[in-house]
């Protein structure tokens, strides 16, 4: 299942790279791609685990860049 999220106020390219790596390592995530330039995150997730994964992913994002807002598009 593919999902796209907008990362608002994404301001640091290195942080985006770290987020991409850490979220990509989460269980149930097949692939995570973050484009710093468009501020978009595209996740390829295992079906059915979406809400748990997103909780973890949001934690990672908060930790690296606390001001970033995440919303699904």
């Amino acid at each position: 299942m593919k999902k796209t999220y907008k990362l608002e106020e994404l301001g640091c390219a290195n942080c985006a790279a770290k987020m991409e790596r850490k979220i990509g390592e989460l269980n149930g995530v097949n692939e995570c791609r973050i484009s710093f330039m468009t501020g978009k995150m595209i996740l390829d997730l295992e079906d059915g685990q979406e809400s748990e994964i997103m909780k973890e992913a949001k934690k990672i994002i908060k930790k690296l860049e606390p001001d970033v807002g995440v919303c699904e598009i």
Partner: protein
Amino acid sequence: MTKNMKKRMIRVSIGALLFFIAVVTEKIQLIKSENLILGIFLVSYFIIGGDVVKRAVRNIGTGQIFDENFLMTIATVGAFLVSEYPEAVAVMLFYQVGELFQDYAVHRSRKSIAELMDIRPDYANLIQNGEVVQKDPSDVEIGQIILVRPGERIPLDGVLTKGSTSLDTSALTGESLPRDVMMGSEVLSGCVNLTGAIEIRTTKEFGDSTVAKILELVENASSRKAQSEDFITKFARFYTPVVVISAALLAILPPLLTGADWKDWMYRALTFLVISCPCALVISVPLSFFGGLGGAGRSGILIKGGNYLEALSQAKTIVFDKTGTLTKGRFAVTKIVPHEIDPAQLLEVAAYAEYYSNHPIALSIREAYGKKIEESRIAEATEEAGYGVRILLDGKVILAGNSKMMSRENIGFQKEPGAKTVIHVAQNGVYAGHIQIEDEIREDAAEGIARLKKAGIRRMVMLTGDRHVQAMETAAKLGITEVYSQLLPGDKVDKMEEILKSEENKGKVIFVGDGMNDAPVLARADIGAAMGGIGSDAAIEAADLVIMNDSVSKLSTAIRISSKTIRIVKQNIVFAIGIKVFVLLLAAIGYASMWAAVFADVGVAVIAIINAMRAIGKVKD
């Protein structure tokens, strides 16, 4: 500039002013008290960099020790501890100014590329029961009628049902010449209506419309990363820890082993920390690719990802499909050979004969004739499959068909040697001549191929299902020497495999097709490029690169954009890493001040960003 940036700018300016006052007072020794001067420096420090310190403290809580906020805080607090007050504040000041500039540049380039791709229609004027209602384009169904006024953007693909106008297709094709459309013309979403109000019957939902497809493609392109982007991310992962650990060793070992002045070595270590952020690199590389993709989009070339943009610069071989790529995939009259009759009359008779036929050949003859057919002149018409047509025109029996038909009717005719498609015409049993029909070569195909040679393509191959004679003739006109003809669709994949494996193949291989029946070959090539496919979902889906306006010469433009982007990326990588390593070395031996370090950090970032933004610019052909 966003509100947030403005606020930060004002705050940093106030801090800078206070810092300036502090430096002056210290210089002219206006205030004697050391503590008071430290106080002023501290206040300006917190006004300038309070947010950095705050974030650093918060990050320690979450274990983010290699974070730039933390590193800058350590470096500046350390400078205070070794009594370098002005430098401590200056480092923070320049860091903040650099950050501001960096954010501004990123914001600007995001905006300029967003504007470039700002083709999303906001609304559709739906005509319902004679009234015009403004609706979201995604709420319009297939088959409904929408009104597009001059100046408005066409929101959905459809067929023109009322009015006529010129369309500005530049957003889709990069072509500045307006296109005239009239009743029955297919129109694509994303074009801007220039002159007259028109009504359109929609043929696609918004999600399937050209504009939505293009937007999706462009927006997703920057998430497919090029190798050099991955390299930089990996480099950044190791760079910071290595520099920070070296800094720690630098601060501890020399004073401990040799008893040297610990303040001096501490200063060198702090200088290291200032340079330890890899931001310049991490920002400039994706920015360059983003710019390159955006610049290509503006020229009517859609590239599906940074990886393909990168691969394009290494392309050495191009494989063309003939029909629909080098040729228009559409028949046209190329020669009229009359026999004891006026050429115009021959064409007229042939056009009337082919009036009821829907065959592409018939269409091309009627198109060449160009005048209106008066149906009343035709009394009778029969089509004989495999032979041709027989009509009664102004009382004369007209035969139009192939040589088999002429032989059967015992009409003496000249056999045409070569590969062309020929329609013979006879009037009342007397031979009247023949018309040659060929698949037209695209106007700019020869020029496009010449440009590709100049752009560094070494090997050009043409694949086709056509017979050998026909294929060779087209190839000769275009200057292609390697031709494989009479191939079935499956054979084309095998040929592609062969080319990919062949010994002389050192670079990447591009395949150019129309995306209709060559999807497997498109997929097999290093870069699959589709052209002639605007509005065709199949092409947009199967290809890695789509040329929106069917022009062969856009291929060399794509390669040039790619080479330019890669050049910028390389410059940035070499420049940024070079300066950083250089300043690190100077710092280690005690020759670089913190000022130089700040330059190596923010200054390099700013220069790299400015360089990266060049990638959006136009390229020369």
